[in-house]
């Protein structure tokens, strides 16, 4: 493609014009495909499942079953089968919990924030992102159960009237976690579902057998009348506004699990915004990873195009810059302040026992930011995949360092400790990763992955108009 893209109003040579209009037409799917063709392009990969799909599912189910066995083993014999100990009471489970909550932020970022900013490039991505949010939250929501010493008494965290007049302690950040994650999960699931309805209706109209029955149930009798569309848009607009404070508060609350204690390096006011920034960074990177993979495996090349990855890559880069800023803002204050225990922790990270993990974290989080400033890299899907995977390795390491690294040290050197995860923790963490991937994979085969109605709606907005000798893309305001 040419480097210089003419802006509207530039005078353009006729030969170039037809090239440009070709490009625009491709970009905006104008006159390229009929509605029916788009429907088919989206439905076909959904309905077809080759052997690769089933092998993947089998492997994931095996990992999940092994993880469930490990969890049962841990419940039966006790939490000591994991590597957590005195003083490192929290380990991989809590670190992975934060990680999953972080991943879940990408969906809201894309579908809600970008919707409010009216960024059209979001359209093919929103469902994939929202699904990511819902499933990441489901996986995250497992961890408050997994890390409980007596998980069979978990319901005491639910406020229900009982004969002892015992209510849960709402002063505890863990209760805020419960409320926030529950709210966020319900909210984003509803958001996901609402936006799904028109496409379920479309799928209903094009399928038979169990799929037909499934879609008919969940499409709620959608007929696509103007009244229904109007209500849908109203609902989506309300949701996209409401979900933003929820998503900001959820990760702040998760951060406050740590910040409200007086544990050195946890007790920091920057922890909440730092976590949010890290969540956005990690989530967007994960989204990019997923989209690269899904684009290939579901042959959605014409829906997920270069410009989408370019824009997403820019967002990831900006989020990365934000993460670096917040990390540095926290670090400079701690390092300068010279509190003895924090000094010890920083030393541990930079040159001590935690150094390998720490430098992995920094390399994996900072390097991609540099690389993603280049358009060529952002649009080279192999690079993008590698870099975004690296980002999530870095972000996972960051979570582990925050939870484990800081518990290994405290004010009394006699009571310092070391943490080493066991097969139980690794199996259970692997189970949630496999669970996420499995849910996502099944989702992509049950539900149209690309939001067809949103794409069509986007098409409606744009047209190419001739003004004199110019072909100008124009956009109309749609509610």
């Amino acid at each position, binding site marked *: 493609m040419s480097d210089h893209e003419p802006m509207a109003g530039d005078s353009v040579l006729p030969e170039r014009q037809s090239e440009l209009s070709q490009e625009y037409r491709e970009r905006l799917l104008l006159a390229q495909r009929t509605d029916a063709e788009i429907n088919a392009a989206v439905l076909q990969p959904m309905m077809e499942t080759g052997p690769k799909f089933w092998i993947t599912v089998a492997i994931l189910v095996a990992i999940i079953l092994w993880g469930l066995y490990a969890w049962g083993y841990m419940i039966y014999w006790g939490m000591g089968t994991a590597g957590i100990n005195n003083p490192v009471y929290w380990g991989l489970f809590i670190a992975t919990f934060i990680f999953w909550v972080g991943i879940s932020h990408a969906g809201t970022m894309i579908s809600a924030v970008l919707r409010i900013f009216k960024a059209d490039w979001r359209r093919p991505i929103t469902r994939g992102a929202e699904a990511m949010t819902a499933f990441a939250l489901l996986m995250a929501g497992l961890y408050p159960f997994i890390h409980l010493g007596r998980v069979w008494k978990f319901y005491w965290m639910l406020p229900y009237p009982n004969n002892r007049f015992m209510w849960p302690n709402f002063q505890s950040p863990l209760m805020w976690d419960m409320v926030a994650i529950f709210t966020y999960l319900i909210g984003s699931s509803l958001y996901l579902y609402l936006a799904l309805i028109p496409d379920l209706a479309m799928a209903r109209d094009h399928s038979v057998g169990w799929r037909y029955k499934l879609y008919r149930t969940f499409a709620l009798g959608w007929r696509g009348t103007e009244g229904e569309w109007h209500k849908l848009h109203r609902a989506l607009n309300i949701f996209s506004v409401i979900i933003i404070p929820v998503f900001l508060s959820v990760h702040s609350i998760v951060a406050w699990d740590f910040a409200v204690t007086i544990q050195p390096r946890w007790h920091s006011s920057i922890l909440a915004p730092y976590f949010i920034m890290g969540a956005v960074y990690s989530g967007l990177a994960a989204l990019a990873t997923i989209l690269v993979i899904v684009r290939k495996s579901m042959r959605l090349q014409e829906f997920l195009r270069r410009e989408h990855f370019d824009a997403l890559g820019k967002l990831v880069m900006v989020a990365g810059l934000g993460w670096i800023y917040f990390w540095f803002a926290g670090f400079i204050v701690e390092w300068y302040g010279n509190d*003895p*225990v924090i*000094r*010890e922790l920083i030393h541990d990270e930079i040159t001590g*026992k935690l150094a390998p993990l720490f430098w992995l974290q920094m390399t994996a989080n900072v390097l991609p930011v540099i690389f993603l400033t280049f358009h060529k890299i952002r649009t080279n899907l192999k690079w993008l995949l590698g870099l975004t995977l690296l980002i999530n390795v870095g972000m996972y390491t960051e979570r582990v360092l925050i939870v484990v690294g800081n518990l290994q040290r405290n*004010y*009394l*050197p*006699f*009571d*310092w*400790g*070391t943490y080493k995860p066991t097969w139980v923790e690794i199996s259970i963490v692997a189970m949630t990763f496999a669970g996420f991937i499995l849910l996502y994979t099944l989702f992509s085969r049950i539900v149209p992955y690309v939001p067809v109605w949103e794409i069509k709606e986007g098409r409606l907005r744009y047209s190419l108009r001739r003004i004199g000798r110019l072909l100008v893309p124009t956009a109309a305001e749609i509610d």
Partner: protein
Amino acid sequence: MVGKEISRRTFFKVAAGAAAASGLSPQVRRIALEPFVRPPEEELPGRATWFASTCRQCPAGCGIIVRVINGRARKIEGNPNHPLNRGKLCARGQSGLQVLYNPDRLHNAVRQSGGRGSRIFSPIPWDEALNELSATLQSLRDPQALAVLAGQPSDHLYTILASFLEGVGAPPAVIFDLHSALDGRADYASMSSRWFGERQLPIYDLAHAQVVFSFGANLLETWMSPVAQSAAYGQMRQGSLGGRGVFVQFEPRLSATGASADEWIPIPPGSEGIIALALGRIIVEENLGRAGKHNGHAHLYRNVSVADAAQASGFSVEELRRLAHLFAEADRPLAIPGGQLTGHTNSAQAMDAVMALNVIMRRLGRSGGVFMPQPVPAERFTSPAPTSNLDEVLDLVERMRSGDVEIFMFHGANPIYELPAWVGFKEALEEVPLVISFNPFVDETAVQADLILPDHTYLEGWGYQVVSPSIDRPVVSGQQPVTQPLHDTRSTVDILLSLANRLGGTVARDLPWNDEVGFLEESSAQLHDNSISIYDARTPAGFWSLWRQHGGWWSKREIKREPEAVGMPKEAMTVPAATFQGDEATYPFHLMPYSSLTLSDGRGANQPWLQETPDPMTTARWNTWIEINPESARSLAVRDNDMVNVTSAFGSLQAAVVVYPGIRPDTVAIPIGQGHSDYGRFAAMRGANVMDLLTPSPEDQNGKFTFGATRVRIEKIGQMKPLARLEDLDGEGRESIR
């Protein structure tokens, strides 16, 4: 179900079903709660009965009270009225319940039917066992072929045993246990005899001393009477109106006792006596102190050269002078020899040198000084059980080896484990046709026995013990069962009495009592009507009752005697240099085996509480380690948790390294207590037995137990073994981060 009455029956059915459903797990057992059908008279459900007895986890003899609920002993506390410990109790005392309720106890008398060492035991009825024993004893051609070894026997057992052996014409029992040997009790009795003309252990009035110089005595851990000494130490520190006492510890390795001292003087092993002599010389030369003139003592130090002593010990003359001034200028100085000091070849002379310091500072019979105990005013209690020297043990081994012993019986001792391997006790036992153990546990020596006739554990047994070393008055500590015996065990005293009865003749006449309790009741009656008793009763039966309630007998007020230095040397004192086994080039390090605070001489290894209690200095648990000075560790290129081979001229073992700042670079220390091959699930197969390293010295043959005279070398193996330490090594022993 509103408005409908649930019958009680339905309710319980439903409730039981729910309970069963919620308890679903293959591990849940149904435990039936059975009330006493006819409870003992003193039992009230939910209320505790407290029984007074005596702790027997070490030779000290502290009084305990045991909380018993529903016939089960739940908690041991110190007896608040007992003059020795006054309600306080040490870690080993607290752990006694795990001896009583130990899962590896023998449940009945057994024969090792699979042969010695097979560990296959079949129960035999007591009658059969006693018949067999009695028949064997009667068929002995020569009663001299009966040999008995007793470890830390209570005084009542000793009295009965001594009478029994004398009555049948057998040689007297050998009394040896490692704890008493490490305490140096035999050496102390000899020293007392030399200086004060009696074999009683002296009393140190630690509570009122102003400056305490301890030469090797770990008096706050296991030495002699640690609870009483710790209480006195607390008093010396913060309890006196006269100011806070100063405590100086002279030892090559900083023990927990040394950690509580104001100063640790890291002396070379075996140099205690030389330093004590030098201090004495300086005191006499410079006429230090306000205790009076030293003219009469000058002859003692005529051959002492302070400069030579300084050179031999590695301290400057200035330093020795400073210490001498510190000691002598105090109003109430006190010098205590003991512990590691007694393990050297020059221990007798060293003890004399240290005791001389008390004499020249005129501390005998003065507050904060040295006293002799007042004997218990009754004939039965005047001769507490003696401790044998090592040469008596070696004699026994020699007799066994040459086939002169036909029956060997042992009680309260585990000689195969406790004695150094060079003694060859196990090999000697092979020559003895019949070996009988009275121990309640299958330990290393019991595994080489043919018959085990398990005694009760101390919480189930009767007895008394004359407290020695005493505190400030005569005390007979009483022992009574706090529960019914758990298993089909039998008191050894009862067995001896019953055997005496069967054997008839002299021994039956010497031991006329039907059972142990009869003997004890009669013994107690000897103190009835004594004017100094803390309690009195109109009848001996009433007195016996009070005896049991109080937990023994003691006088109502302090009675101590001033020792007379009748044995003060008339010639100049000398202390020869200590000698060590193994040449310095091949074996560069002095080996210091030390008594573990929790396991003592190894007897605590079967109690999980003690195994899991951290060693105060290393915080390590459950295993054996070797303490090495940081500089030495660097030169050996070993770090914490590295495994090393420790080799002496006699043997070798493997242990994990603890880099230990508080030890001389030329010395290494290994705690005693692990390395059991038997003795139960908590003890067996962990760590190493440091007694295997001890190398025999010529002095050993003369009766000195030179446990401190071995040299070793250390080699890295290249493996690591993380010790179960409570502290985190990264913390580097800091109190806080600075």
